[in-house]
């Protein structure tokens, strides 16, 4: 509200002053005509009014420009834009005044030869004076504001005082003219201050910091506009007698405008030459600043880009943009092979069919390209296969300055031949996209990630600066790629962990939740996996089928290998056992033979299962045991202790013939007080710090020492004995399973 009120006040002030001035001037004209004597005081009042109008107008224009300023712009208005508007407005004023002079005759002044005082030729002269001053003067004031902003751009300590001094000297010089009649000669102080102002103008005229950051296009446009403006202002002041009219309006204002226009013309002149001198280097400057921008963007994206393919694309894009026009670039990712000849990432291979190089160690694939077709890349890579070969052997920057004469590419290096060949390519098949090239390896420590290739369509097109920049990009991208791969690895690992968790759950469910309850018998079992998922298995099965258990089986097995596959084989074994145990309730050997047949068919060749299976007949008080490559059973009775060794072959090693030939079974009496222990190799292969194994003898001793205790206690005693044995520095290297069966 306050702002608008001030604006209205200023506008009214300027308007009233101007109206009064016009009134005085018209009166003065007729008074002079009638040869009345005019009081000099009138000129004094006129000057005061004119200065008031000028100040009001200046403030109005300044406020207007400031309000229209671009946000965060010191200049308020873009220089090119300012020059263009100035050019148009000055042009319009010149045209308007020209038209006025054309329509009305006698619009200028006559000079009194005796005292040099000007007199208007006609009443139209008065009107032209006012038109020229109001419009031309407004433009001058606007130009002064723009000038101030340009001079203040990137100001240093003295900038403001220098500028204010210039305006101040012009003002003082103008003020000394107060009360003067148009045409009166300048006094000494006027000239002195004007000269001082001139010196300050020269100092200010070299404040041109705003020229450098302009784009090349803007510089070219500005150059012409500045020239145009210079001419226009000259025309306005000279050919249109603008200066004379300003002075006729008011000698103070006229002198002030004389100073401002001198300042303006000088500044335009220095601007013109400054732009002219910066023009040839502006392309290089633009390139440099775009390089800095790209570098910045590239470093930003290293921090937060995890999509590998996007990294490739950005890398190629930045490289292309930075080296300049008609640059092509592509990126070949390197995929090493694993020992069995399979690619690390067969999925990625399927998605990217354009292989550049392929051998036993690995292959390169183009995964991102710009300004060049796949065919063109292929054509080139056939010719320059040595690049990929070299990169594998010694990853370092390879630079080819001229594809046609490089000895690594062509046998003949005769310059004449090369020239003819080049002529041929230019006339014939159109321009080759690749005439000079650099290949930069992307490294993660010593590992090659891929190659960035940047090429230009001219020979010697890539200079040292370009190469440095490309190398920087490559280094940044290598870090980004490494990051993204590490993150993917972590994710994969987590997924694996999840899988293991599932396998662990499966495995825990495969083991019996509780032992069988059989009258007169006591049994217990336990299994501790060495890792998340082990390969040990045990189970009890009721073979009688009616409520009273008169016959039951016990199995302990060890699946080779660990992890998920072991868990699944274990599940298969449990299925086989549960389905076969009722079919062969009296013949453990037969059960193992059938189990082997089934498992050998389905299991992987490198996997196998060692298993021991025993059937206990409570009516006959016997135990029949058969062993498929498993640790022998320990038998402890009241009077003796022994190991029941039986010939046998692990399940899944042989399809049948051998297994059936060697597998055997043995039936033992199983009386009250007898104890048998089944276990896996984790028990006897546990080692102490001296690398001695726990061994079967220690196991027997342990069992014998606690044979009077319950099955559960015996089991715990064995486990504690193994733990005590390994103690500090030893280890249970495998899963550990113990099953104890005792007849009470």
């Amino acid at each position, binding site marked *: 509200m306050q702002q608008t009120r001030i604006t209205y006040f200023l506008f009214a002030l300027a308007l009233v002053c101007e109206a009064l001035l016009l009134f005085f001037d018209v009166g003065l004209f007729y008074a002079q005509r009638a040869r009345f004597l005019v009081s000099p005081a009138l000129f004094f009042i006129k000057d005061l009014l004119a200065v008031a109008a000028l100040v009001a107008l200046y403030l109005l224009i300044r406020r207007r420009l400031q309000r229209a300023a671009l946000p965060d712009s010191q200049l308020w208005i873009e220089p090119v834009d300012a020059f263009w508007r100035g050019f148009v407005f000055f042009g319009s004023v010149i045209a308007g005044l020209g038209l006025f002079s054309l329509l009305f005759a006698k619009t200028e002044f006559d000079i009194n030869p005796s005292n040099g005082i000007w007199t208007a030729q006609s009443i139209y002269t008065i009107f032209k004076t006012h038109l020229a001053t109001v419009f031309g003067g407004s433009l001058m004031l606007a130009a002064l504001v723009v000038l101030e902003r340009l001079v203040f751009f990137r100001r240093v300590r003295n900038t403001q005082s220098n500028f204010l001094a210039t305006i101040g000297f012009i003002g003082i010089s103008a003020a000394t003219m107060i009360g003067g009649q148009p045409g009166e000669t300048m006094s000494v102080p006027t000239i002195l201050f004007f000269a001082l102002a001139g010196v300050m103008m020269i100092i200010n005229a070299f404040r041109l910091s705003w020229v450098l950051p302009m784009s090349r296009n803007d510089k070219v446009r500005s150059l012409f506009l500045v020239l145009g403006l210079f001419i226009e202002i000259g025309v306005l002041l000279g050919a249109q007698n603008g200066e004379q009219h300003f002075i006729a309006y008011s000698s103070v204002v006229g002198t002030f405008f004389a100073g401002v226009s001198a300042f303006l013309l000088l500044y335009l002149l220095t601007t013109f030459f400054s732009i002219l001198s910066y023009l040839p280097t502006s392309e290089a400057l633009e390139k440099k600043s775009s390089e800095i921008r790209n570098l910045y963007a590239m470093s930003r994206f290293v921090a937060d880009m995890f999509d590998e393919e996007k990294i490739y694309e950005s890398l190629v894009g930045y490289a292309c943009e930075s080296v300049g026009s008609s640059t092509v670039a592509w990126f070949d990712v390197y995929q090493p092979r694993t020992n069995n000849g399979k690619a690390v990432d067969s999925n990625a291979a399927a998605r990217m069919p354009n292989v550049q190089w392929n051998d036993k160690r690995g292959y390169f694939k183009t995964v991102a390209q710009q300004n060049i077709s796949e065919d063109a890349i292929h054509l080139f890579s056939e010719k320059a296969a040595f690049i990929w070969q070299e990169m594998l052997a010694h990853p370092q920057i390879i630079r080819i300055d001229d594809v046609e004469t490089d000895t690594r590419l062509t046998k003949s290096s005769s310059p004449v031949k090369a020239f003819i060949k080049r002529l041929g390519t230019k006339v014939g098949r159109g321009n080759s996209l690749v005439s000079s090239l650099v290949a930069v390896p992307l490294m993660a420590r010593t590992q090659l990630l891929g190659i960035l290739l940047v090429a230009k369509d001219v020979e010697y097109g890539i200079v040292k600066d370009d190469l440095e920049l490309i190398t920087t990009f490559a280094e940044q991208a290598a870090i980004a790629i490494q990051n993204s791969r590490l993150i993917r690895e972590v994710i994969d690992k987590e997924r694996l962990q999840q899988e293991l968790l599932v396998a662990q759950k499966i495995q825990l469910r495969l083991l019996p939740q509780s032992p069988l309850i059989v009258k007169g018998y006591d049994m217990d079992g336990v299994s501790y996996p060495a890792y998340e998922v082990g390969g040990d298995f045990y189970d009890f099965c009721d073979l009688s089928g009616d409520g009273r258990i008169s016959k039951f089986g016990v199995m302990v097995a060890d699946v080779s290998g660990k992890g998920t596959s072991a868990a699944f084989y274990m599940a298969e074994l449990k299925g086989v056992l549960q389905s076969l145990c009722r079919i062969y309730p009296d013949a453990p050997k037969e059960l193992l033979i059938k189990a082997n047949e089934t498992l050998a068919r389905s299991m992987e060749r490198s996997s196998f299962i060692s298993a021991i299976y025993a059937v206990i007949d409570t009516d006959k008080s016997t135990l029949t045991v058969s062993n*498929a490559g498993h640790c022998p059973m320990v038998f402890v009775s009241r009077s003796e202790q022994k190991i029941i060794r039986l010939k046998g072959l692990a399940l899944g090693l*042989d399809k049948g013939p051998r297994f059936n030939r060697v597998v055997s079974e043995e039936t033992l009496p199983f009386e009250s007080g007898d104890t048998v222990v089944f276990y896996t190799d984790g028990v006897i292969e546990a080692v102490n710090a001296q690398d001695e194994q726990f061994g079967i003898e220690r196991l027997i001793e342990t069992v014998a020492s606690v044979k009077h205790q319950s099955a559960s206690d015996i089991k715990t005693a064995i486990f504690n004995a193994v733990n005590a044995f390994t103690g500090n520095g030893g280890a249970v290297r495998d899963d550990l399973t113990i099953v104890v069966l005792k007849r009470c």
Partner: protein
Amino acid sequence: MATFVSNIRTLEKSAVIDLVGDLDAHTSVQLERAIQDLIDKKQHNLIINFSKLNYISSAGLGVFMAFIDDVRSKGGDIKFSNMPDKIFQVFDLLGFPMLYEIYTDEKEAVEKFNASAA
């Protein structure tokens, strides 16, 4: 972490792989790679020398099973030699002596290969 090294020597027409240290689920991958490399180089007469092996797990045994059919179908074999008692017990328990030839000295295995080639 168990340490394991496998060294390869050529003895006449056979390749001898010396196993040193502990061969378990983790280190067996290393042995797998070594044997695959030999097969890739068309070496199918393989002798595994166990004299310096301290421990073998079931996964380690699986390595030999994984290659035996392939090697035999190409006219070669995997023969074992110089087994310490401790290691032999593990093989014996599972019934491996029925599937593989086991020699007290690698020279016998070499001679066996030479004889079958002649």
